[in-house]
Each structure stands twice: as structure tokens, then as C-alpha cells.
């Protein structure tokens, strides 16, 4: 069984939000809510500066803290490792929202919890997630971690540096950040 994951090359990302807009339209995310957003951090003193653009979304953790806390089984992990929500089963109790260390979930106006699904419906048609396909900087890679020839395996192999968000949580994120800025980059922020 595949282990699906995503990587974002922060050296390439310009924070243009093409991915965020693609996500909103593909998944009809209500106005004011986001499955995917961009965090911009700036650091340094003129003229020695760093700006990092970092798209954030559900990390589809290998040990997702959101799954065991769900009382109805609405939140579950597929065999390919995608964390999904069955809105028919969701009672919007919010346990998963509180359990997620990454604030990746929100209450959908139609009465259930929602978040990034890796565009599972597109994967079924053999297509890439909408954010991956549309990115004009080609900063996103997606695929099977167990397949050494997949886009993601190649991207991870070629990266100078790989980070995940809050590794100390032990969640085993499957959203990897590649090549974050050398100075004042992701690791330093994580260490804080």
C-alpha cells in the first residue's frame, strides 16, 4: 500500500497563494475558512534579511492525534495514510480541532469539521492534488514515499535540507518542507 505524502520546496515558494485559491475552488471552502494558508515570516536587520513563505495545511500525520479522539469514527486514516473526515458521521464536537497541534482543522458552516484531504477525489481519477498541479513555481511534490521513483521521493532525495513542523510532537508529519532559508529558517523557529 502506498504511503502518500507531500513536500514543499521553500526555496521556490513565493507565497503567491495560487495553491490557496486552487484549494478554495476545488473544495468549495466557505468564505473566511481555509484548508491551506500561507505563513510569511521576516527576520534580520537591513540589509541582511530573510523572508520565508510557508504554505501550511493538514500534515496527514502518520500518528494523527485527531483520529483517536474522534468519538464517532468520522475522522480516520486511509490505508494510503491520508487523514479524512466523513462529514456524515461528524457531530462537530471539536475534539479533533483541539487535538491537532497544527490548527489544520476548522468548523465548516454546514455543521462538520473540515480540512485538507490531499484532494483524495482527484487522486482517484489519477490526478494530483489541486495545489500541486497549479503551482507556478513547481514547489510542491506529491506521491508515494515507498516508491523511490515517485516525485516526492526524488524531491526528498535531492533536498539540501528537510524539515517538518513541530517534530517534538511525534506526529510523524507527511508534509515535508524542503530547503528552508539558511539563516533564520524553519529549524531556528522550531527550536524556539
Amino acid at each position: 500500500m502506498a504511503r502518500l505524502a507531500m513536500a514543499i520546496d521553500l526555496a521556490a515558494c513565493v507565497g503567491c497563494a495560487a495553491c490557496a485559491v486552487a484549494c478554495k475552488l476545488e473544495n468549495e471552502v466557505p468564505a473566511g475558512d481555509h484548508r491551506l494558508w500561507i505563513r510569511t515570516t521576516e527576520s534580520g536587520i537591513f540589509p541582511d534579511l530573510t523572508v520565508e513563505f510557508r504554505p501550511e495545511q493538514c500534515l496527514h500525520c502518520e500518528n494523527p492525534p485527531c483520529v483517536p479522539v474522534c468519538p464517532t469514527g468520522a475522522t480516520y486514516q486511509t490505508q494510503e495514510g491520508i487523514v479524512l473526515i466523513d462529514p456524515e458521521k461528524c457531530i462537530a464536537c471539536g475534539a479533533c480541532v483541539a487535538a491537532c497541534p497544527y490548527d489544520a482543522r476548522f468548523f465548516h458552516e454546514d455543521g462538520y469539521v473540515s480540512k485538507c484531504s490531499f484532494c483524495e477525489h482527484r487522486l482517484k481519477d489519477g490526478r494530483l492534488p489541486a495545489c500541486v498541479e497549479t503551482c507556478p513555481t513547481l514547489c510542491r511534490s506529491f506521491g508515494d514515499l515507498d516508491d523511490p521513483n515517485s516525485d516526492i521521493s526524488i524531491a526528498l532525495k535531492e533536498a539540501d535540507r528537510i524539515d517538518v513542523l513541530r517534530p517534538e510532537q511525534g506526529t510523524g508529519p507527511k508534509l515535508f518542507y524542503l530547503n528552508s532559508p539558511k539563516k533564520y529558517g524553519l529549524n531556528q523557529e522550531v527550536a524556539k
Partner: protein
Amino acid sequence: MRRREFIKLSSASVGALMLGSQIEAENWLANPLARVEEPWHAGEVTTMYTVCENCFWHCGIKAYIADGKVFKLEGYDENPKSRGMLCPRGQAAIMQTYDPDRLKKPLIRQEGTKRGDGKYREASWDEALDYIADKMKLIKKDYGSESVAFFAHGAGDSWFAEYLPAAWASPNAAKPSVSICTSPRETASQYTFGRGIGGHEPIDWEETDYIVLIAHHIGEDTHNTQLQGFSIARKKGAKLVVVDPRFSTAAAKSDTWLPIKPGTDTALLLAWCNVLISENIYDHQYIEKYALGFEELAEHVKDMTPEWAAKITDLDAEEIRRVAREMAAYAPRAIIPPGRHTVWYGNDTQRMRALYIVNALLGNYGREGGFYINKSPYLEPYPHPQFPLEPAAGGCSGSGGASTVESSYRPPADAGKFFAHTTAVQELIEPMISGKPYPIKGLICYGVNMFHSIPNVPRTKEALANLDLYVAIDVMPMEHVMWADVILPEATYLERYDDLLGTAHKTPFIALRQPVIEPMWDSKPGWWIARELGMRLDLMMYFSWENIEEYLETRLKKIGSSLDKLKAKGTIVQKGRPYLKDWEARGRNPFTTHSGKLELYSQTFKEAGFDPLPVYQETIQAPAAHYRLLYGRSPVHSFAKTQNNSLLMEMHSENAIWINFDEAAELGLKTGDYVYLENQDAIREGPIAVYATQRIRRDCVYMVHGFGHKAKGLKIANNRGASDNYLQTNYTLDPISGGAGLRNNFVKLIPGATKPRHSRIARLAKDRRI
């Protein structure tokens, strides 16, 4: 019916029912288990090819349609613009089509009101078109056909800046994409290489190893293919140098940032020439084979050392020298792209000449990793009788305006004000006021934002007030639209055909703009409006085609294709001739200057009284307590066109004034404070949020262009952020290209403004969902 529509109908109808039922309905609506909708892609989805119009890059796109509505727009692989990807603006363009604030019916200004009062009555298309045609004929009788000007922008400008004005015989047709955008780079390229740059910059991104950007805001400017090329180059290991007074997004990606003093770029470029020549690291073979005037150039720059430039530019001489050496080491796979918006200080054609000369010394024009040589696609015009005048507007496609006007017609009203054969939109405002050199009494404005693109808004308003006829053809009730005598609501690009879109490119191509849904409300496509006007203006012989399909089919048949074929694949790609070696293999010379050479030294300029080699000139300096006003782009907005787009406004809802952190501290300001901006002519704009940052020099401030709409009909855009264009009351005319240098405006920050109160975008967006 989709579930959401059903819910909407239910909740809309409950108000008319008894209270009990209403509560019951609301309880039902609140039941989370009952409200899971079918996603749009679950049912039957059809796809159609068309071309995007949310900026003027014009990507080929695929529209996904379900239940007669467009839900998604994506790029497609076969189109050389989108290559299967799409920027945020292109994707979110759907929201404009479904924007309830759109113009819905033809409108005629109420009798007895003044322009700008904004009072209108609805009219039929016949009444509105008859009104316009009658007035145009009157103006023609009293003043001549040239007295009606045509301003147009977008794919539909082919009808309103070219076809109709040429048939009507007005040389006063202008596009803002010329003199308030690209004219310096196009003119300089024409007089250096003998070729323009064109709307799709011929940068060989994928092959380059060293990129130097001068205030070229890739990343903040999300021209799709350009961003792709930039990113691919960097992924392949290309080095990046960014010259900018501001630590832009591109600067954040750079290996070297040169925070140059604004207005001094020409000095930097000349110093690079100096290093390349004095250290003998330019491309000898290339220069000997292709260029003219090297000796004069060498003599000209011999004292323009990095030390000389360092004093002017506020950069380090060794850094200047190092970058020149690195460029030479990577040449010819090293390039300084020309950028796009190049009307900065008024001496802009000369700055662009200096930029091209550095590129020439690197030997990169027509070589892999430098500039490729673009080619226009093979396409034949519709066989209409010859127009009385050649289309005059030119454009960023680089075609240039007509160089001559038939002797029986008057030349354009801006003739003689500058050297190049382009029309300058801002120079056609003055004749509307002064009547000199002759009066302009009518204006047909198609998609040009008169108050957010042309500098000196008070002058533009005075000119509009003076006209006998002012017509606005637009999609949205922009502020300038609500000044017109007649307002014609155009269908959005998703609802209409336009003329074929041909792009000069490495692989020349033709793409189809076609309607993917029917026009909403009482809007009509531009081609239909132009034709209906033409018929009323006794120009039937030019509009012998019954409808657009016939027009397009005729053009496509002539090149061995057909409308059906193009509908099936969206884009026709042809073969190009990108490199010098391809030209030489056919015994052809791409340098079509007067001398047939790459002209480092321009005899033509000398004869016209201009410097034959670029000279650094100091620009106007800021008055005391003022900062130079710089401006740029947001990745999610196109000029002043997208600030009523709910989805894009969710991503970026207002601009801020960037000011150096230490300067802000001295003014007692911090990020999040609100201020007014007051320019050198005491024009005030705002309130606008302060962004106190390390990312900008102390002598300038910066804001994103396009915010600060004052149109009440734009429910989302109205009064969010501030307008740079309102603060650009001054411009410096480039005497060569006719460009309006916009960066000689200066502002003070006036503390104490209060944050404006606005409804949340998300709340406003609820009414606008698909």
C-alpha cells in the same frame, strides 16, 4: 439541483411563512447530519478551452462547468502560457463573472446631471447605441473623425483600439500598456536590436545560469509562465542578483541583493559596461560579429567605474565589480531581463538602452540562456476592405503604432511630443482640455481604468467633464465608468468570444477565447458592441461578417485550420526560430535596425538630438520630509481590476505603506497604525495601514498599486486601502518613448488617521458564491 441551492431557496422562502415554520426550518438547517452537500465535481462536469483575462498575460485555460456554472479554471499542458498551471488571479476570475456588483444593463446618464454625479437610468441596447452613434457623427461633422479618441485595454482592445478606430478613422487610439507601462523597453529594444520585446518577454529562463533583476518583481507579479521559468532556472541552480530599493519577494530568493538608491540604475548599468570592457571580459566574438559602435561605447564608459557608480547608487564598488565579473563568467547564459513596467523617471528609454547594452556585451541576445528571438504566429487578417487608417495604438505586443498617417487625415494629437511612433494615452488628455493641437471631443473607453492608471487624476476629471461624449464599456461599475454619458455592460471573458489571441514566442501560438457560459443579465460581448456601433456609423463594409464565429472561421480557414479544430484543442502551436544560429542557417539577419547591426551606438538617436549612448541623469529629488513613492504588485491582484473579487480579497484585502523601520520610529509610527499620505501637490490619500519594516531603504516608501477604489458600486473594493495613482499627480515624459515616468512623486506620512470600518470580506463573500 445542488443541495446548497435548495437550502438557499428554503431559507429565502421561510420569511414569508408563519413563525413556527420558520423556527422549524432553522432547526432543520442546524442539523449537522443533514447538511452534507454533493461536491460540484461529483456530478456531470464538462470542460471547455478558453483564454484567461484576469491579467493581460492571457494564459490558455480549461473551464470546468457543472449545472451550467463554472466552478474551476485550470491551465492545460498544450498551452505555452499556462503549461498546465495557473496563478491565483486566473483561478479566482470566476468570482468576477458571478459578482452581483457587475454592470447589468445599458445605462444613460440622467438628463440634467453632471458627469461624476453618478445618476443613471436604464436603457435598451438600441437606445444606448443610437445615442452614441448620433453623438459621434455630430463630433465628426464639427471637428473631424480624429476628435473621437479610443482608449482600450485587454483582449477586447482589438475591437476598440484597433478595428473600430481604424475603420472610423481616428489616429487617437491608445492603450495604457504602452506609455504607462512598456514603451521605454520596447522603444529601446527597437533601436538597439531592431526588434521589440513583445508581450511575452523572450527570456530563455530554462537555459540561463545567472539572472540579474532590476526592480523586476517576479513573485509579486505572478505572470504565470515567467514565474515558472524563474523558478525552473533557480531549481536548476541559476544564481540570482536582485537590484531593488526594497527587499522584494524576488530579493528574498536572491544570492545577492543590491539595495540601490532609487533613480540611479543607469549609473549601475554603465559601471557594469565599464567593468566588462576595462577588464576585457565581454564577448569579443559576438560584439565584433554583430554589434556597431563598440569603440564609442568603450570611450563613453571609460570613467564610469564602479567607484563612480558607488557614490551615485549608494552601493559598494566591489559588489558592483563582483556582479559584473560573475555575469561575464556565466555569459552568454547570463541575463538582465528588461522587466515590464519601465516608466520610472522619464529618462527611461536610455536606462533600457543601457540594460540592453550590458546584455549585448554578455553576448546573450539570440543565444541559449539569454534572449531568444520570438516570432509571431502565422495568421491572416479578416479580408475586410482596407481601413482608412492603420491601427495606431501599438501595444505591449510590440507591434508599435502606425508610423505614418494618410495625408488626408490629421496625425495623432500627441504627435511631435516624443520620438517613437506610439500613442501615449496620458498625452491625449491635455487636448480634451486645451483643444490643442486640435480638440478631442469624444472618448470611447473600453476596460481602461481612467482614475487608476493615467497619472494626474484631477486633470483626467477635468478632461472628462469637458467632453461632448464619454462612453464607458466595462464589466464593473468602476469610479470612472460612473462618469460616462453612456455605460455599456460587457460580458465577462467567460461569456464571450474575442478575436484570436496570437502570441510571439519561442514556439509561436494562437489560442481561442470562447464563451463557456451564456452572458449573464443584459451584458453583451465586445465584438458585438463594436459591430453594432460600426453598423450605426455607416461602416457596414468593414463589418460584413454576420457574427464572430464567421469572422473567426474565415481567419482560421486561411491558415488551414477551423473553429471546430481550435475548440477541440484550445491552442495551435507553430514552429519558431529562437536563436541566431537558426537565422544564420537560413541566411537571415534578425537585427533590423537602420544599420542591420546590434546598435550599441545609435546614430538615429544622435540625429534626432538624443544621446547616442546612454547617459546617467540625476532625477528629481524628494522635497524635505517627503519620501519617494514606489509602487508594485500583489501576487493576487491585477492592477485595479480585481479588488472587488471576493476570493482574491480574502487573500489580500488592503494595501499598506511600507516604510523603513527606523524612519517609522522617528515618526512615532509602528506597523498597524493608520496614516494619510500627502503628496508634493498636497493631494491626500488614505487612510492606509503602516508597515514598518527592515525591507526598504530610508529614502522611499512603497505600496501595492490598485487599491483605494472610490466607486460606491464596488461593495467590496470601495475604500479599502489607498491609491498610488491618485498620488501620482506628477509625471516626467520620456522624450523618446512617450512613457510617463511615475516615480517622481513624493509623499509625507500624516499620523493620526483612524482605521476605516469595513464589513468582513467573508461576510460580503457569502452573497457571491457560485
